[in-house]
């Protein structure tokens, strides 16, 4: 019985302190977003949550409160606390109903004008308090502690998962790029070499046989077929992984692109170091498409290609002094660049006012 009263008292005390603290928290909420307020708010939250932990008899939480803790605590603390205050107030006031003036009597559920209703209403309030205060207080305390902590655990798990996915994605891209490079090698040095060797033999046979007769026709067809296959193979390889990238690296490959462009291109390559193959290929294709646009539409007299690695980002910038007005909805050049950037979780920014100049910036994440 005594424990019961202790529990009621502790619950009631917890709820009444919540009423005060909740009301005190309300005017602070508008400042919660300010960075300067953050440490104070964290300490305030920690103190309140220690009270909740003490009520429940559990250790105080190690993680910080959730984002909306302040709002929730202020509102629930004030409202539930106020209800507890009302109930407790009635229990206290009922026995002294006779102290109230006759023309302004104590009002519980109805005006109190004798011992009968006073004790009746008082008893109802007391029963509510005894039965309700401990579970409501514990419930509120659990919410104060557990809710935000759950959110934290979820956030932690999500953050961890995002990091894991980011890593595995980078690994997959890296493997994919390396695989493309290997396939390019295999096709060029294996398949293409076989085709050339085959075509040479067919060519020698054709010359030896002359060009008359049904066999000569068959040989000619076979010879031309082999040649067509070589052209197709080369085209496939070129769009899959530019061979110059394998031979000369990103710098050499971009220099080759610049040399091929109708507009003079200045190339600036700053400390890119060793890059994953997929990233190199993406940068190459992006610059190739951008320079094609420059040559076709810009009427520029000078273009600049800048590739730079800084803080986990590979920056690819293609700028020209042309007429501007690049319209993403027309033509496929910029759309293609955006797609390539997006495939590597990168972003594209285009600035091209009418009258120029045009500046196209792609940022690709790359682990450093």
């Amino acid at each position, binding site marked *: 019985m005594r424990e019961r009263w202790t529990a009621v008292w502790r619950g009631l005390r917890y709820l009444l302190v919540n009423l005060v603290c909740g009301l005190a928290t309300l005017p602070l909420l508008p400042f919660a977003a300010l960075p300067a307020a953050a440490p104070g708010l964290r300490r305030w939250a920690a103190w309140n949550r220690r009270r909740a932990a003490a009520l429940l008899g559990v250790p105080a939480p190690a993680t910080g409160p959730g984002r909306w803790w302040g709002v929730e605590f202020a509102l629930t603390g004030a409202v539930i606390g106020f209800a507890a205050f009302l109930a407790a107030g009635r229990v206290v006031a009922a026995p002294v109903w006779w102290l109230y003036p006759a023309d302004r009597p104590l009002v519980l559920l109805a005006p109190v004008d004798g011992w009968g209703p006073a004790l009746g209403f008082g008893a109802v309030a007391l029963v509510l308090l005894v039965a309700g205060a401990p579970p409501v207080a514990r419930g509120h305390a659990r919410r104060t502690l557990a809710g935000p902590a759950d959110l934290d655990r979820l956030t932690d798990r999500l953050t961890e998962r995002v990091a894991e996915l980011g890593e595995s994605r980078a690994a997959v891209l890296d493997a994919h790029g390396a695989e493309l490079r290997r396939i390019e*090698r295999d096709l*060029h*040095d294996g398949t*293409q*070499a*076989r085709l*050339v*060797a085959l*075509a*040479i*033999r*067919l*060519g*020698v046979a*054709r*010359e*030896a046989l002359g060009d008359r007769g049904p066999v000569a026709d068959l040989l000619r067809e076979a*010879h031309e077929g*082999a*040649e067509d296959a*070589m*052209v197709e193979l*080369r085209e496939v*390889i*070129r769009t899959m992984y530019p*061979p*110059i990238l*394998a*031979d*000369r690296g990103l710098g*050499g490959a971009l*220099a*080759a692109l610049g*040399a*091929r*462009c*109708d507009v*003079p291109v200045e190339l600036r390559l700053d400390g890119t170091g060793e890059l994953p193959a997929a990233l190199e290929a993406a940068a190459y294709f992006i610059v190739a498409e951008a320079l094609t646009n420059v*040559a076709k539409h810009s009427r520029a007299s000078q273009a600049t290609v800048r590739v730079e690695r800084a803080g986990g980002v590979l920056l690819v910038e293609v700028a020209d002094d042309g007429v501007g007005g690049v319209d993403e909805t027309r033509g496929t050049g910029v759309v293609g660049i955006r797609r390539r950037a997006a495939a590597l979780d990168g972003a594209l920014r285009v600035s091209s006012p009418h009258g120029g100049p045009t500046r196209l910036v792609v940022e690709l994440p790359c682990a450093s």
Partner: protein
Amino acid sequence: MRVVIAEDNVLLSSGVELLLAAKGIEVPEVAADGPGFVAAVRRHRPDVTIVDVRLPPTFRDEGIRAALEARRASPGLPILVLSQYVERVYARELLADGGGAVGYLLKDRVARVSEFVAALRTVAAGGTVMDPEVVAQLMSGRERRIDALTAREREVLTLMAQGRDNTDIGARLTITGSAVHKHIGNIFTKLGLPPEEGGHRRVLAVLAFLGSER
């Protein structure tokens, strides 16, 4: 004619040897890498060399480097470079010393046996032979200047850049030699090149124009 080959792929080198043997051309040595090639050139003093761009150990552009090195050791050494793909920066590097006797062809072209051997002989004789794809790449980069040329003049320019002489160009386009001569005069005037020069020097002039940095 004696030819030294730098090619690590046995399938390819045996094919090329077979082809050259059919044309009565002697191959004293096939080197499998750059240093081997430079040594073989020193040893055999060939009339012309055939070099694959990709050679061991890294299979990048060792062939180009080896060719340029052999050329420094033996100035004027005729070199025909074969490549899986053509890239005009390689053409420019090969042409850089202005000495002629340079060829740069896709590997595919070897299968056109007679044309390939003709190209080889042109290079051996000090001429310049560029793959049509290189010429196309060079032309596509100069659209504005080339725009001034008529379609026929562009055809003549392409054939010239491949190292063909007037007679050959006339035969291919079925026009007379004097018509070819007139077209070439117009081309040189329109492109602002010095008056026509003979042999590989005119090819170089055209390629230098096409490949020049402005």
